[in-house]
């Protein structure tokens, strides 16, 4: 597609189908996700966007009925190859969820470093460095630097979500998946998250599922429109929102349905 001309490909998805039991949730989707860019996935509820996102780091496998067909390559490596463990994939492809979920038993800095510590990093110096670095990237450092030992659940909702982003960044993934990361936040916290996404795309590949069309238009470089499990259209965001090639896409982004 024309959209990808100047970018290297981070995730190459080919003929992806995902099933939950008999339910065919994602139907034969192929698309290339560009590195160091933001790709938005939009579509009405139940159209398979979250399932598609979760297939990108094999999180959908938590459902024991899940089954997939097709191929996904992360910078050339087949993430569904038989000798690849999901744990390794998820270290390279991080995820932020709709509902912020910092671990309630841990302090702010313990939350940031938990991924490193439980993957065997013991070096205090690295942990301290990475805490500051991740919190700075998540634009949270200045707000929490004086109380890193405070319980994570003492933060506000927006801060908790940025903490979750810092926690995901601390393990230094190559791709960051975001499943409606701002839909539970107020407008101010949302705009902070959006600014953050624009900063992060300098170093990270970001895929974001959103129900908010304006948000997709504001933060993303590419947009994929899903409908009932199928990829209807995938193109540069400006094109999707100004002159989409499919009637269905136009109806959806102009709010005529969905």
């Amino acid at each position: 597609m024309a959209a990808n001309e100047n970018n290297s490909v981070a995730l190459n998805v080919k003929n992806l189908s995902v099933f939950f039991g008999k339910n065919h949730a994602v139907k034969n989707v192929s698309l290339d996700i560009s590195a160091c860019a933001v790709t938005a996935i939009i579509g009405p509820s139940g159209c398979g966007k979250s399932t598609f996102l979760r297939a990108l780091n094999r999180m959908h496998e938590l459902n024991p009925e899940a089954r997939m067909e097709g191929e996904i390559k992360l910078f050339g490596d087949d993430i569904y190859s038989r000798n690849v463990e999901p744990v390794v994939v998820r270290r390279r492809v991080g995820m932020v969820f709709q509902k912020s979920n910092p671990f309630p038993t841990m302090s702010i800095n313990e939350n940031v470093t938990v991924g490193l510590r439980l993957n065997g990093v013991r070096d205090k110096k690295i942990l301290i460095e990475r805490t500051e670095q991740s919190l700075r990237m998540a634009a949270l450092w200045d707000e929490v630097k004086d109380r890193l030992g405070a319980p994570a659940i003492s933060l506000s909702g927006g801060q908790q979500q940025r903490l979750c982003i810092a926690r995901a960044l601390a393990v230094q993934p190559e791709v960051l998946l975001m499943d409606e990361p701002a839909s539970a936040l107020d407008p101010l916290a949302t705009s902070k998250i959006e600014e953050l996404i624009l900063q992060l795309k300098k170093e990270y590949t970001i895929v974001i599922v959103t129900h908010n069309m304006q948000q997709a238009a504001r933060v993303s470089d590419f947009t994929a429109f899903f409908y009932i499990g199928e990829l209807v259209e995938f193109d540069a965001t400006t094109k999707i929102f100004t002159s989409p090639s499919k009637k269905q896409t136009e109806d959806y982004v102009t709010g005529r349905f969905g």
Partner: protein
Amino acid sequence: MTAPNHQWRQFKDVLMQIITLACAILVIVPLILVFYHLITEGFSSLNLDFFIHLPKALGEKGGGMANAIVGTFVLICEAAIVGVPIGVLGGVYLSEYGGTKFNWAIRFAADILNGVPSITWGVVVYGLMVVPMHGPSALAGGVVLGLMMIPLVMRTTEEVLQLVPGGYREAALALGIAKWKTIVQIVIRTALKGIITGILLALARIAGETAPLLFTVGGALGWAHSLKEPIAALPLQIYLYATGPYEDWHRQAWAGALVLLLLVLAINIGVRFLTRDRFQQKI
């Protein structure tokens, strides 16, 4: 604006309130009675001798239940060693692993085991341990109480683990943390107070069991020197003394019952303390 049968409705309302209040009071009456009797009858017999002396020979006055108190603690510890690891790990399996049908079967079995009369447990361990070992022992007593704990601890562990929101598991797995580390470091850590509460309640429940001990520990008037020997336990000693012919025995039985009740009460207060702390942390 009043309905035609207004007074009749008001009467029914008051009547039902009185009935439910009366039932609620009936629930605590036995507890008050038990406390009242134990304190009036038992408190006067509680003295230092009771805690540090062995029972005197038949018919002789004085002496205490030192060996029975220690015996009960030994049995509780043994039961915890048997019941806690198996119960907790079983609960972890039920909550975090396993197929729906298989887990349903285990859960069903555990619920049935919870309802098995305690004397049945005693008979089973009598056959499994007392007969092959040619006699009752502290070991057999610990095992029977431990076996009784397993289904209790397993079910409460499973229930509190299920209360941990799935989002925490997903967050940990999405960080590339292995499943077993997620369970140990995130899920169990989040639910730890609930798990400990379940264990303490199970201990309180088995601390006063008498029937299974009748078959297994044998009882003793002196100290046990190894776990293979018969051992004394408070509930047994109470049973023995309360049904005996001597006035002094009855007095000591009351005191023993008071000590046992205070032990169970202490455990329950510990549980309250833990759960109160839990609400403060808003988990």
